[in-house]
Each structure stands twice: as structure tokens, then as C-alpha cells.
């Protein structure tokens, strides 16, 4: 049975420590992970990003997504951390790490979880720029990414 841990939190986290925990001291041969950041610097002059979520449903949606991944692949560990609240450019937003025996299942499950999270988990981003704040639009490419997992 895969070890699953999901957190929705404002606090930052230590990605290296999360990877170490996923490897289970060598029980897993392969760990694939994804980190999403608040883009900064030249990328559209973002001053800050506020992540709103739907408490309760968020955790439930993430648990459902991870359970779907576990039905498809044999996994040894799954870790999901999603931050909420106001974050600055360069800050981590999301971490998804998947441990498996081989790299194929770890990569696929990690990408699957991200694609579902992007389209099914109730988080919303509001960007602050020099021209004011606006809600980020959903991207059609995220729906397309999801579609390829469907039978």
C-alpha cells in the first residue's frame, strides 16, 4: 500500500526533505517530482500571487486524485503539498512527488496528478501586477492535458 500524504498550507516546505522521505531509504528505486513556482522577474511583472481555495473540498479532491492514480499504477509513495495565501515571485506553490519501483510509473502518476490537480482541485490564483490585481484565467491546454488520461 502506497504511503500517501497531502497538505494544503500557507507555510513553505523543504522539497529536498520531501524527496528523501519519498525514497523510503531505498525501498523505492524511482522518485518523480514536480515543483511549481510563482513566476517572477520578467514574466509579466508579477508582484505577488494570492491562492484562494475551498477548505475541505480541496483536501478531498486531492485525496480522490491520488486514489485515481493509485488505481492506475502501482505506487510506493505519494506526497502532495499545495500552498495557499499570498506568495511572492520565486516562491514554491505546489509539490507533487511520486515514488515507485520503476521510473515509468513514477513519471506517469506524477504527471497525472498534476494534470488532475490543475483542472479539478478548487484553487484559484489572483495575480498582483503594477496595473492592479486580476484573477488568472483557466488555460485550455490544461483541459487538453487532462483529456489524454481518459479512456
Amino acid at each position, binding site marked *: 500500500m502506497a504511503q500517501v500524504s497531502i497538505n494544503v498550507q500557507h507555510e513553505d516546505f523543504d522539497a529536498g526533505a520531501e524527496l528523501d522521505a519519498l525514497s523510503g531509504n531505498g525501498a523505492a528505486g524511482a522518485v518523480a517530482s514536480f515543483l511549481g513556482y510563482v513566476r517572477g522577474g520578467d514574466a509579466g511583472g508579477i508582484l505577488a500571487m494570492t491562492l484562494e481555495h475551498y477548505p*475541505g*473540498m480541496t483536501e478531498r479532491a486531492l485525496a480522490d486524485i491520488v486514489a485515481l492514480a493509485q488505481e492506475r499504477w502501482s505506487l510506493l509513495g505519494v506526497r502532495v503539498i499545495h500552498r495557499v495565501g499570498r506568495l511572492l515571485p520565486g516562491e514554491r506553490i505546489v509539490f507533487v512527488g511520486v515514488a515507485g519501483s520503476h521510473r515509468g510509473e513514477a513519471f506517469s502518476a506524477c504527471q497525472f496528478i498534476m494534470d488532475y*490537480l490543475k483542472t479539478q482541485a478548487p484553487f*484559484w490564483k489572483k495575480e498582483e501586477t503594477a496595473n492592479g490585481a486580476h*484573477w488568472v484565467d*483557466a488555460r485550455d491546454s490544461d483541459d487538453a492535458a487532462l483529456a489524454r488520461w481518459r479512456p
Partner: protein
Amino acid sequence: MSITILYFASLREALGVEREQLSLPPGIRDVARLRVWLLARGEDWAPLAAPRIRAAVNQVLASDATTVADKDEIAFFPPVTGG
């Protein structure tokens, strides 16, 4: 029938409402009927009519046909953009 409704993100801001406790008349059996009833309260509620607005019933994504029952928690929100 008494329900709680939550609004999130741009929809919450457009409506100026985060949460409502409502007593519904009989016959509001699903999400589609609930939305029509909410919209009938006046044009301030028009943002709720946008087809992109999603619904959840008791914290699970719902469709127009999803049943609405006493004490349910219903949420309306725009497409999600986390990750």
C-alpha cells in the same frame, strides 16, 4: 429545505457574497433548478449564469443534474487555476 451556498474567487468578488444560508421552496431538486432560482432573485446575481461557472455539492464536483437535498453545502466557482 435549508442549504448553505459558498461562492469563490472571481465569482465571490463579482457577487460581493461569500456565503449564504437559504431556505428553499419545494421543487428545487437539482443544481440546474437551484441556479435558476438563485438568478431569479435579481440581476445582481447574473454572474452566476455564466456557463463556465462550476458547481460542487457537499464538496464534490457536480453537474446540472446533481441532486440538492436538505442541509447540503453547495458551492459555485469559476474554473480552477491552482498548481
